[in-house]
């Protein structure tokens, strides 16, 4: 990534490329630190989207910062939402997901000149000097999630798993395939069905999809959902299915319960970035790629795994981290 100092004379080059904004964390120098967070989803979904704001909130509180959060921002109003934040004199704008990347043009506008930008990306957002990109490879975490599921299924002697998600869109299709491939790393003959409920938030429909899968003997179920995650998982719990979390650590949750926490939550990445920001080390114009098996996140955690299972999973993840396993190739090989 090329470093260019468009944000003013006071910017300085950082070690890993990119530019560190002067005065970090109070970039705009108004004596307060304000973080603005935009999320495309329901920020009370007890899952993926909520975690993003919760992490920011917790960290900011500990530093005495202010956090302005806004959920359910449609992609079409991302731009104006970002402008509104700039008017509020935020020091950083953090986008909850790459769906909101349409807000990025605001970063070049006068209004947002003194603002840091944190943007999650899945390789579909172009790097610009004004923003910090944060990305992971969803194939990695979904493959490992599948692997973990496979381990648990193997222990119980089961072979049938189900994936329930919303719209039939590219990212859901890809996630389903990687998860399936992961299961088949352990159980080459495993059967995996995918149901598109059509809506990440229609709980009744998500539940019916789960019910249909359960009645077909599915014993592990991944509710890759938004607002309807809990309703779907609760139903799966009644059938004692193996369940996974879509992004956050919920091993301690009792209602519903999960067997595997798949942690690819943008909140975790974001918390790490905020720490750097507080220390004045967060560089714009650079990209941070989060590696499974290398970085603390993303990762997959068995809630009640046996020592052997945990060891196998850790080994699998680290071979992804060391590139011994190429997730893309594995998905191609086993995901169809």
């Amino acid at each position: 990534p090329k470093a260019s100092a468009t944000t003013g004379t006071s910017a300085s080059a950082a070690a890993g490329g990119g530019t560190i904004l002067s005065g970090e964390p109070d970039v705009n120098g108004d004596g307060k630190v304000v973080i603005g967070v935009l999320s495309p989803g329901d920020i009370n979904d007890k899952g993926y989207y909520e975690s993003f704001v919760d992490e920011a909130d917790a960290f900011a509180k500990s530093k005495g910062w202010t956090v302005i959060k806004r959920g359910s921002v449609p992609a079409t109003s991302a731009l104006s939402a970002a402008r509104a934040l700039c008017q509020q004199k935020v020091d950083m704008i953090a986008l909850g997901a790459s769906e909101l990347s349409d807000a990025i043009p605001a970063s070049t506008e006068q209004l947002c000149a003194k603002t840091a930008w944190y943007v999650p990306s899945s390789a579909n957002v172009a790097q610009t000097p004004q923003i910090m990109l944060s990305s992971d490879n969803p194939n990695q975490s979904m493959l490992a999630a599948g692997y973990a599921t496979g381990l648990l299924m193997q222990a119980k002697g089961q072979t049938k798993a189900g994936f329930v998600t919303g719209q039939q869109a590219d990212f859901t299709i890809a996630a389903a395939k990687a998860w399936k491939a992961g299961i088949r790393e352990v159980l080459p003959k495993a059967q995996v069905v995918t149901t598109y409920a059509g809506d990440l938030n229609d709980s009744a429909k998500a539940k019916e999809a789960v019910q249909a899968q359960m009645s077909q003997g599915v014993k592990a179920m991944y509710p890759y959902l938004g607002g309807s995650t809990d309703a779907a998982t609760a139903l799966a719990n009644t059938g004692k299915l193996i369940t996974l979390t879509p992004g956050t650590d919920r091993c301690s949750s009792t209602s519903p319960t999960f067997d595997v926490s798949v942690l690819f939550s943008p909140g975790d990445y974001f918390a790490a970035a905020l720490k750097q920001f507080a220390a004045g080390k967060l560089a714009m114009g650079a990209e941070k790629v989060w590696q499974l098996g290398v970085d603390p996140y993303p990762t997959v955690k068995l809630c009640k795994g046996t020592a052997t299972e945990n060891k196998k999973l850790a080994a699998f993840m680290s071979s992804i981290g060391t590139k011994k396993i190429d997730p893309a190739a594995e998905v191609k090989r086993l995901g169809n």
Partner: protein
Amino acid sequence: MNVRAALSSVSVWSGSVRSGWPAVAATTAAVVAALGLSSLLIAVTGGSPTASVRALYQGSMAGQTAWTTTLLYAAPLLLVAVGSCVSSRAGVFNIGQEGQVLVGALAGAWVALRLAVPGPVLLVLTLVTAGLAGGAWAALSSLMHRWRDVNVVVSTLLMTFIAAQLVAYAVNTPWLLQESRVGNATVSSASNQIPAGALLGSAGSYPGLQVNGGVFVAVIAAVVLALALARSRWGFRLKMLGLNPRTAQHAGVRTGALGGAALAVSGAFAGLAGAVLLTSPVGTNRLEPGISDNIGWDGLLVALVARNQPLLAIPVALLFGVLRSGGSFLAATGVPSFLVDVVKSLLVLAFVAPPVIVGMVRRRRAGALTAPAASDPLRVPQEATV
């Protein structure tokens, strides 16, 4: 002539609300009540009403940037509203603008992304195609009405949901309008960004205040239609059709064709609004399932509050624009932006209800044989709707 047309429309308005101070006073009281209720809601849920009001103001009217955003929202709202005025005049109640906006944006996006023609031509083609598509979509309802007597309210409503799935299908289907894949990246449920040539630029830039081309399109449409409705033979016939279709037919008006055309025109303006959403910086310049963003529903409400007067729709659209941009800013202060939907709905009721109620009370008191004026859009769903 413009000014006189304007004056005559305004006088029609005050006539139809049977103006006088009771209606004005009641409206004022209702607006205050609506704002009071909203404040109460904020306070009860732990927010600060004064801060919220300040935020609403700041985001929508304080400064040139704020005004820029407000105007960006107002333009498509005004376009939808102006179209609604036309169909309502003809006595046809179209409530499918949301779907017509979507179909317009869909067709516009297709043209903008698929045709290789130079910039300005592409923009014009995008806008025109979107208008035609919105019009055609509405015309389907009109054909169903003519052939099989299908209720226009019902069919325009149902067609909205079909339009939404059509767009969802298009942006999830690679050979249609789904965005192209870069390397291994996942693609989102949206089209590619339309080329710069098809973007509506700012037709004026007063340091920070940018007046987008869409604003000019919308205002010109409002003025031209106000003039046409008030003065032209077409406007005369529409009015006749809306107020008494039998007499209109007797007088030689092709009622079916004229009513159907009015519905199509209304759809066309909604489609054009869809294109403005697509090509102006209000959104992301891509086709996405959420691109209509309730502009269709809100535009219809603008027309209703403006009592189907295109010129009055200008300030009302501006007010709705203020609510949208202010709401966006309000959300940036931490108050969930859904609050703005609540405020907006309460305000619509506050504007719409009191004149009707005052009129009704007056009629009851007078006991006169004054059937409510059929021209009153808020009271009488005209014959065509049933």
